[in-house]
């Protein structure tokens, strides 16, 4: 998606990227960035640019992810990994409130999360779009989520524009990329000699001032335009969206659901790596108090859950999504169709993680194509 650029681009030499990390740390941010670990690239704390995936890119296919050398001196050539911004705003597990006995009574109090200042380097346009989607759910509903808000306020986002796509990407179809146009404080585009840098916020401009930047040469800007256009034009996967949500509502009894249901493990991996999925479970966990305490001390905890968890649709003695195909249909129809009715946007940003990180490589773009075919 192209649009007016937020600010004129400047140029940061490759050797000076470390200065960005330092400028952020000097402002009290803990800096998270892409690091290679256990065969993938994940977000973790970075103190030095040496920790970034230098000279690496990744090959992604349904159910397969491999890092490989790219023969160049890059640090941002890995498009994404299983991690997204989600755990930084919507914690995988967190305590909401605590209940304590007080005489013959009880006292409930909210527990406020640790919300340190976090700068995340290397987020992609799709990740920013996903964050907007989650903002809508957690902040703009009738009951805004203060736990999410507390973390959200503390984020500083350094986007990286994608100049290549993984085979599983389809951000162009979802109109969320490859260029980051909103939601960031700084945006970088990696080139041979360094990085084009743009600010997207007042704080981004402030951090820019701490960096040894020079005006971006016109040739660099032209190269950037070409690489973004090429990236968009060569994106391998596509998802037709013009007929959503109706095409899914019309095909709720399509035989393809049964077919995908036989292949799907209902393991929940897709929902875990999806940067917009928000389903969670809440449990009250009793705590050990004093042995002679009369009442029960407990903490209410919430943690990431999934509509693929069979328990998600359990009510009394009845389960209303008993089969895997019911749950797969729920996920796909929600993600691409009913999400629009519930929240006014699609739930999908085209990041492709669900395709890559599915252990059996189910591809929702393929499933959608099949669902548009007439049913047998």
């Amino acid at each position, binding site marked *: 998606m192209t649009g007016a650029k937020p600010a004129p681009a400047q140029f940061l030499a490759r050797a000076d990227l470390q200065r960005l990390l330092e400028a952020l740390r000097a402002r009290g941010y803990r800096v998270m960035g892409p690091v290679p670990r256990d065969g993938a690239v994940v977000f973790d704390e970075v103190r030095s640019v040496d920790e970034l995936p230098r000279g690496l890119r990744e090959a992604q296919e349904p159910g397969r992810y491999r890092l490989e050398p790219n023969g160049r001196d890059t640090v941002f050539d890995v498009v994404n990994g299983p991690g997204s911004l989600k755990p930084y705003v919507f914690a995988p597990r967190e305590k909401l409130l605590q209940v304590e006995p007080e005489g013959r009574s009880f006292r409930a109090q909210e527990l406020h999360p640790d919300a340190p200042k976090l700068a995340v380097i290397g987020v992609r346009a799709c990740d920013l779009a996903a964050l907007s989607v989650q903002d809508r759910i957690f902040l703009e509903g*009738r009951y805004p989520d203060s736990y999410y808000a507390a973390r959200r*306020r*503390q984020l500083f986002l350094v986007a990286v524009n994608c100049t290549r796509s993984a085979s599983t990407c389809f951000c162009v179809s979802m109109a969320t990329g490859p260029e980051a146009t909103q939601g960031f404080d700084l945006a970088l585009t990696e080139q041979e000699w360094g990085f084009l840098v743009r600010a997207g916020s007042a704080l981004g401009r402030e951090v820019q001032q701490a960096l040894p930047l020079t005006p971006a040469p016109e040739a660099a800007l032209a190269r950037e335009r070409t690489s973004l256009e090429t990236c968009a034009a060569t994106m391998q996967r596509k998802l037709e969206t013009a007929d959503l949500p109706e095409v899914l509502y019309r095909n709720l009894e399509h035989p393809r659901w049964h077919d995908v249901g036989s292949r799907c493990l209902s393991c929940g991996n897709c929902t875990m790596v999806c940067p917009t999925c928000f389903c969670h479970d809440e449990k009250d966990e009793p705590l050990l108090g004093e042995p002679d305490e009369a009442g029960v001390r407990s903490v209410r905890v919430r943690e990431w*859950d999934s509509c693929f968890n069979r328990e998600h649709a359990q009510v*009394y003695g009845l389960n209303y999504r008993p089969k895997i195909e019911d749950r797969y249909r729920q996920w796909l129809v929600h993600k691409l169709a009913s999400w629009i009715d519930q929240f006014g946007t699609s739930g999908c940003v085209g990041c492709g993680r669900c395709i890559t990180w599915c252990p059996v490589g189910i591809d929702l773009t393929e499933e959608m194509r099949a669902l548009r075919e007439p049913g047998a």
Partner: protein
Amino acid sequence: MSMAAEGAASAAAGVAGKPAGPDPWLPRLGRIVSRRRDSRDAWTLEIREQIPQSASFRPGQFNMLTAFGIGEVPISLSGDPAAMDRLIHTIRPVGPVSTALAQMRPGAAIGLRGPFGSGWPLRQAVGGDVLVVAGGLGLAPLRPVLYALLAGRERYGRITLLYGSRSPDDVLFHREIVSWSRRQRIEVHVTVDHAASGWDGHVGVVTTLVPRAQCEPQRTVALVCGPEVMMRLTVAALHAHGIPHEAIYLSMERNMKCALGLCGRCQLQSVLVCRDGPVFRYDRVRGLFAHKEL
């Protein structure tokens, strides 16, 4: 603050400057005042809040009730909305939390959040007939609307209650139903699926009572609550009786965790039951009944 966070902060300012009223996240303390068995497997709790709330609930709404240390479940309010100093809930023990709640004795401490959700359409019913159809425990979320209808009786035409249970032992609020019927302010028909000795009333599923309803279909609002299969069949029977789909309201039930529209547990196709329901006009959820296992 970063621009990215600015938007979030302003959206979240609603959090910092929270609307007046109790914090919807935090369980408030209540005490059980009384407990009575209202049918074979349903107990009604009367609860008094430690800090009484100033606003009442709308019939059809639910509270999230916490059994401390065990968990929290959604339970419809089943009492009179005009009696603001007490909260009445009717509970069937089916899982760990509901079992713990149903066993609570007077004096026990309970947690409360709410009320949440949409209520029965009292305004839409004014000036016309009202047909209330309940199945099993479904009478509990409907009892508050019956109280409200009786309290404003002159505003409505004929009020009819059709109530079906599995067996005589499962009939809820039996004495009360009889008193409504005797006072004849509303017409009451009760049926059971399986008769037992001593039962001389109607036998058959509740849809068999629909033809008996003396309401005028074109100016009737129907309120339906019960097991999903019962609701599906009842809607068909009501429609056959001449009541349009836009005049039929249902109370849907789903598992809920947050009741705040955030956890996704209660989602049903395009709606979140805690936020958009539990009371729905039939045409909004009609698609859901056309497909199984959504």
